[in-house]
């Protein structure tokens, strides 16, 4: 065999092995979470409060907390993010202001999440006195996911052909009518994909809500928060507390794995939904 070809084979095999090892390592990791976590998950685990100093019972308050936090976050981020994207793509030209807005979005996306957390702690929790609460946490997460929603919506709107707008405008529709009737519906799958990814990101974030919204479980806490100014449990921070702050982490390991598996399934399924929407939309698109 040609020496050149042999060399190529060797290199390509090395690359294949490396790629496969990375994938195998990840599968191994997920496998460990599934085998150790699955045994902890049952109906009681999903619907009960933690009991006996968190060594028994479930994670219902954490599930609800994550739900409240992420939904409130998206309630802030979706309208503002989509409106920003509409402005940038449909209304703004190439002005100095647009450059400023764009660089603000890029910068916001580059801020490490712990800085968002510290900022949220300083501004929302202490200065504005929202306290350690769902509101403080959701506002902090809002800062974090806003660039994600904007970028996804912007990309989605940019893929809608120019002729769609021109046709509508030529028929006498106003700018907003054109955007509402002839652009947004076609950009919607992409916009939704972005919103779902933002939801997944918010659900998985830990450091920002650790500083602004959540507490280590206390027995007297309500299972479901009664007000947006209440502190809460959340899946991600519950994992952290159980693994590092619990007096006996080894004793609650199985519950920790169970919580991690629930969070992992939640985040991965949201991402899968986003991928499915995107591919189906791409396949069906016929312009």
């Amino acid at each position, binding site marked *: 065999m040609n020496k050149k070809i042999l060399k190529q084979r060797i290199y390509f095999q090395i690359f294949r092995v490396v790629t496969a090892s990375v994938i195998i390592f990840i599968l191994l990791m997920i496998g460990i979470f599934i085998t150790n976590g699955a045994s902890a998950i049952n109906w009681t685990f999903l619907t009960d409060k933690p009991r006996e100093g968190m060594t028994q019972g479930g994670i219902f308050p954490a599930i609800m907390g994550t739900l409240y936090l992420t939904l409130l976050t998206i309630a802030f981020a979706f309208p503002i993010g989509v409106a920003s994207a509409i402005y940038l793509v449909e*209304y703004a030209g190439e002005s100095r202001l647009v450059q400023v807005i764009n660089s603000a979005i890029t910068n916001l996306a580059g801020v*490490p999440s*712990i800085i968002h957390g510290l900022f949220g702690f*300083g501004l929302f929790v202490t200065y504005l006195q929202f306290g350690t609460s769902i509101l403080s946490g959701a506002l902090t997460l809002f800062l974090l996911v*806003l660039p994600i929603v904007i970028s996804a919506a912007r990309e989605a709107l940019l893929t809608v052909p120019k002729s769609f707008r021109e046709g509508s405008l030529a028929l006498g529709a106003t700018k907003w009518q054109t955007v509402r009737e002839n652009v947004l519906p076609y950009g919607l799958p992409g916009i939704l994909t972005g919103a779902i990814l933002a939801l997944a990101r918010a659900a998985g974030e830990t450091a920002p809500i650790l500083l602004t919204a959540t507490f280590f479980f206390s027995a007297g806490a309500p299972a479901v928060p009664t007000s947006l100014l209440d502190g809460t449990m959340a899946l991600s921070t519950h994992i952290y507390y159980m693994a590092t702050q619990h007096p006996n982490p080894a004793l609650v390991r199985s519950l920790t794995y169970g919580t991690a598996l629930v969070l992992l399934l939640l985040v991965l399924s949201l991402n899968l939904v986003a991928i499915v929407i995107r591919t189906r939309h791409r396949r069906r698109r016929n312009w």
Partner: protein
Amino acid sequence: MRGKEKKRSAIWKETLIEKALLASALVSVVVVVLIFAFLISQGGSAFGRISIIDFLLGTKWEPTSVIAPSFGTLPLLYGTMLVTSIAMVVSVPLGLMAAIYIAEVAYPLEKEILKPVIELLSAVPSVIYGLFALVVLATWIQQLTGTSYRLNALNGGVILAIMVLPTVVSLAEDAITAVPREYKEAAIALGASNWETIRSVLLPSASSGILAAVFLGFGRAVGETMAVLMATGNVAAIGSILEPTRTMTSTIAIETLEVDFGGLHYNTLFALAIELFVITFAFNYLADIIGKRLRRMGR
């Protein structure tokens, strides 16, 4: 008359909508300005009471010491750089090899599977990686190296490498795929093998894109919190890779909830956040200008 009025109200509505959309777009600007202003006002006031030199170069981070509190952030910067460097040393070669494989070697079907898997990988929350590092990886690394510290810089570096791998792989793959087809065809036509083409044509042409990927990975690794917090043991000391270390991000995460609002310690945490931001911003900025140069070259 009525038609005219209707038209006027329609125009009015259009203007109102445009203004509302503009207002939404300005939220990002307001937020960024607010974050900067807040960090600078809170962090800046620390420097009336400690010198900026002591803060940046001091080797003792003992903010809660009763006798002589000390706010030197050098050990924290060292911890961040140590863990991040390990992460890059591990993830760049692996990521590059995986990127070459996916872009140039893999069958279309393999590619269809590998790309979404890599994408899903970046979706796994950092606290999950942190738990894995704390419970499983730490044991493996301890058995492998025989270190007496279960949690150490190497553990944090390796888990961080896995976390930034998707960033490095997908950006490097984009860079390789973006090389114009003609380059590759010309090399093949001259009798080069696929590997020779990759090594002497694709990789050099994609080098700035790959470099941008590395910088972005670095920026991401520097700002990562939970995995590092759970994996490294959190001792603020300048030690070896097999000893515990503590990063800037972990320090903010651990100490923010323990400080007195408005005290010196509180202010130094904001100053630390500024330092952290400057570092991540520098890496993101480098990646950005390299990426822009790349796009200009492409056209």
